């Protein structure tokens, strides 16, 4: 298991400014420019420590929000390409259905991949529903646009005998010829986030890495759907390296200290869903069935997404913002305590989901200040990471079922080839 350090780069001083919406409608007059400059510089410093700590780096972006000041993940990515020499650099990611110019994405990713001599890993995300209004992006059929952008970006980065023509449903170019080319051949590894097994199948078809957040149950179902799809294609088991998972992490000298750290990081959970109702469920973002179910429950417009709800392993629904640390650990939302406790929690999670090769660790969030963040990062990298690097997963019934499907698919391939 590899670890990727992440912080959302929040601006907590504005979290009490509007109880209805910290996104889309909160005016930027709530930003003190010197404080914001301090935050941006401080987080770059913390990410830059990853080289020495043996951690990789993960960056993300959100828009018009006090919960995240990174408005383009490509910008800190470019800075960190120079600040570091060893860490892998993951953006997770670029909301490509909300970007009007996929060729610009291809150019920027190629540039940073060269600059870092091949350390970029390239995540594409649908993005949360609250990004739609900020981008003024058409939410209906947005995944069609997502996949067209994905196809165009990868073709633009991997074509060495350009230019080529692209006249698609959503994007039009007549002379695509990306300079510079990326360092990695044919292009950096692609990650895609997914909340649902259905999207996991789409990602498996393309054999990209898939990542999810803050729910061990969702991760288990997603990874299973991915592995099953790979088996149906008659391909060898992809192994845990294809899977990523983001959790909040607090490691202390004592259980109390680790939990104190995670409670501060958890400020993220307590604020991320504070959004005015109409922006929570733009038309076409969620499925018709999910919307019908919400109307049946009496929700008129919001309430489709369950940003605050998470399911524990026993099926009990808990509220991420108000649940206890123990409940959140069970659900896989966070890992917290001493190094021994966190190692045990991560091992238990890894067994539960059937193996996960990439842990995206949110070791900073909310009001956790620099000194505690550094302590959290050091304890995690020195005392937890070495003990989770080579985790084994026992064969279970799910695995046996997947193997039967794979054998059948491989037999059918052989017959078809004869």
């Amino acid at each position, binding site marked *: 298991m590899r670890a990727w350090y992440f912080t959302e780069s929040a601006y907590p001083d504005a979290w009490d400014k509007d109880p209805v919406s910290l996104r889309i409608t909160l005016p930027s007059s709530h930003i003190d420019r010197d404080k914001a400059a301090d935050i941006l510089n401080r987080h770059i410093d913390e990410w830059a420590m990853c080289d020495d700590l043996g951690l990789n780096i993960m960056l993300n972006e959100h828009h018009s929000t006090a919960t995240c000041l990174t408005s383009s993940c490509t910008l800190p990515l470019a800075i960190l390409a120079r600040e570091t020499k060893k860490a892998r650099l993951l953006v997770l990611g670029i909301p490509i259905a909300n970007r009007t110019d996929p060729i610009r994405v291809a150019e920027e990713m190629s540039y940073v991949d060269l600059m870092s001599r091949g350390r970029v890993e390239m995540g594409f995300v649908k993005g949360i529903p609250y990004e739609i209004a900020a981008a003024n992006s058409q939410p209906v059929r947005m995944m069609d646009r997502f996949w067209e952008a994905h196809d165009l970006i990868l073709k633009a980065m991997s074509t060495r005998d350009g230019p080529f023509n692209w006249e698609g449903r959503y994007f039009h170019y007549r002379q695509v010829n990306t300079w510079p080319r990326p360092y990695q051949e044919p292009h950096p590894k692609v990650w895609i986030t997914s909340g649902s097994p259905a999207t996991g199948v789409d990602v498996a078809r393309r054999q990209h890495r898939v990542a999810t957040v803050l729910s061990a149950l969702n991760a288990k179902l997603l990874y299973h759907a991915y592995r099953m799809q790979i088996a149906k294609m008659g391909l060898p088991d992809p192994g845990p390296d294809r899977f990523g998972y983001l959790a909040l992490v607090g490691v202390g000298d004592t259980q109390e200290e680790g939990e104190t750290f995670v409670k501060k990081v958890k400020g993220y959970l307590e604020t991320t869903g504070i959004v005015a109702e109409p922006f929570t469920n733009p038309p076409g973002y969620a499925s018709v069935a999910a919307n*019908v179910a919400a109307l049946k429950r009496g929700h008129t417009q919001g309430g489709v997404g369950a940003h605050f709800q998470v399911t524990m392993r026993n099926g009990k629904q808990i509220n991420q913002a108000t649940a206890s640390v123990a409940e959140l650990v069970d659900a896989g939302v966070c890992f917290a305590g001493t190094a021994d406790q966190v190692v045990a929690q991560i091992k238990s999670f890894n067994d539960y989901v059937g193996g996960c090769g990439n842990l995206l660790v949110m070791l900073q969030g909310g009001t956790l200040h620099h000194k505690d963040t550094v302590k959290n990062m050091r304890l995690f990298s020195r005392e937890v990471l070495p003990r989770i690097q080579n985790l084994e997963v026992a064969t279970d019934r799910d695995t046996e079922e997947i193997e039967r499907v794979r054998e059948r698919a491989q037999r059918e391939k052989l017959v078809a080839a004869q």
Partner: protein
Amino acid sequence: MDKTTAAPPPRARRTIAGIETDVIEIGSGRPLLFLHSGEGPTAPTDRYLRALAKIYRIIAPWHPGFGYTDIPADFRDVTDLAYFYLDLAQHYDLKDAVLCGASFGGWIAAEMAVRNTQRFSSLVLVDALGIKVSGRETRDIADIFAMPTAELVRTSYVRPDVAARDTTQMDEQDLAAIVQSREALCYYGWQPYMHNPQLKRWLHRIGIPTLVLWGAQDRIAAPEYGRAYAASIPGARFALIDNAGHYPHIEEPETFARRVADFAMAPA
């Protein structure tokens, strides 16, 4: 308010020019093609259709993608709906018909009328969307996708209770129709927001008598917007319906039907 609930007029599935659509056909006499606002011709009530059907033969389709059909795979914008309805007018062999559209349906009617009015002899636009009047930093049309549902209903009507419904008691097919209509409205109207920047440029092509009817208390698109619409169409008349917001045909169905009939008097 009259809350009598007669059985709704039957919804018939038709395939027109390769596109599946649902249509209500009631009444007899001169044909009137009604292009709906909101979720469909019967939402939230069909009283205005019944009032019109005392005078006209009503053809009231759901726009493709609204209600119970999917957005056609190759439809991209409102002009596709306009051409589809010109095909529909041909399919029904309409002659001397009244073309009437409300809100989003009014936008489609205007797009049809700048292209071809051969089968129509009168046009009635009811609180129609579709044009840009003010400058780039002034929104002519309220951002319905940025309003909480309760606020949207309050803003749309003088008497919001006309739109009251309990979704927990509705069947799943009708709930899916609500969701699909919301998606379709977004699909066709998200950007540019509820208008075609070129439409106003061509409204001068409308050569049939036109009435622009407006809810006097419309807070989705104010009466000034309606006056600007009427001023762009040669010879168009503008009239207000009192005690009504963005959907005067829903709030004042009898007055609405009388105004339409007074304007488009002559039977075929």
